[in-house]
């Protein structure tokens, strides 16, 4: 995993208090990691701070998996 992916993973593990092994790109926040919709909002806010990016509300809705988050932030950082 890239450095950015590792940082995303760390935030997810800390926020959702889940086993790091489960936090892989295809893992769905809600279905696989036990998040609720408010958790996703909070994760998005945490990503915004960690990576100094703006994630607009409609983009936030498309972030369903760990991979979605990594891809979105990677695009923003380009």
């Amino acid at each position, binding site marked *: 995993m890239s450095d950015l992916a590792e940082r995303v993973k760390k935030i997810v593990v800390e926020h959702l208090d889940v086993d790091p092994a489960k936090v892989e790109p295809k893992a769905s926040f809600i279905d696989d990691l036990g998040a609720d919709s*408010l958790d996703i909002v*909070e994760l998005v806010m945490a990503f915004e701070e960690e990576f100094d990016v703006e994630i607009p509300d409609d983009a936030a809705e498309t972030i369903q998996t760990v991979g979605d988050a990594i891809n979105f932030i990677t695009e923003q950082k380009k």
Partner: protein
Amino acid sequence: MFDLSGKCALVTGATGGIGGAIARALHGQGATVALSGRQAEKLEALAGELGERAHVAPCDLGDLDAVDALPKQAAEAMGGLHIVVSNAGVTRDGLMLMMKPEMWDEVIRVNLTAYFRLAKAALRGMTRQRFGRIIAVASVVGVTGNPGQANYAASKAGMIGMTKSLAAEVASRNVTVNCIAPGFIATAMTGALNDQQKEAILSKIPAGEMGAPEDVAAAAVYLASEEARYVTGQTLHVNGGMAMI
């Protein structure tokens, strides 16, 4: 009971009768307060009277960009933000047949939209710190309706509906959201009534008198306290029995 030491509270409408009493009461329980309103001099005077743990944060709630920035500004001044009391409110009364759209818009903007923007801006920090108390001062007429106040009653009913929805969204984060619905309280807002109107109102209040701002402030202290942690999405009526709902 009801100790608020270490808590930081933003109170809007602190230049008014009820907001001033709420700010004093929260401060009296040990909270640090940020006083908001448009009249900066009045805010300074109240802060001066309270002494330590009191800050001023002037803001025109008609300017929604300024409302978005207010919680952060208050949090920076106080070193945190745990309690938000959305108390400022306006009336522009008139029969609906005669009500100009501007009278509707202004009341909805200051009473309801500013509450939405204020609560939203305060929530980030509250959900993150896993603690928050949002308290909105609505009104009995938001539940009962009142001729001549279609705009005001709609704004207050809107506050109650928003409060219930938000309470359900953030309860798991230890953030409670409640309304206080005052009946008739002796302040500048009710001072504008004539004697005939006052008499008509008093005849409908079992307690036989108007309430005092301190009666409303005591409800705010309770809802802000640790003791009220399991109370959320509620509307606490403080009205001398004029409506039992």
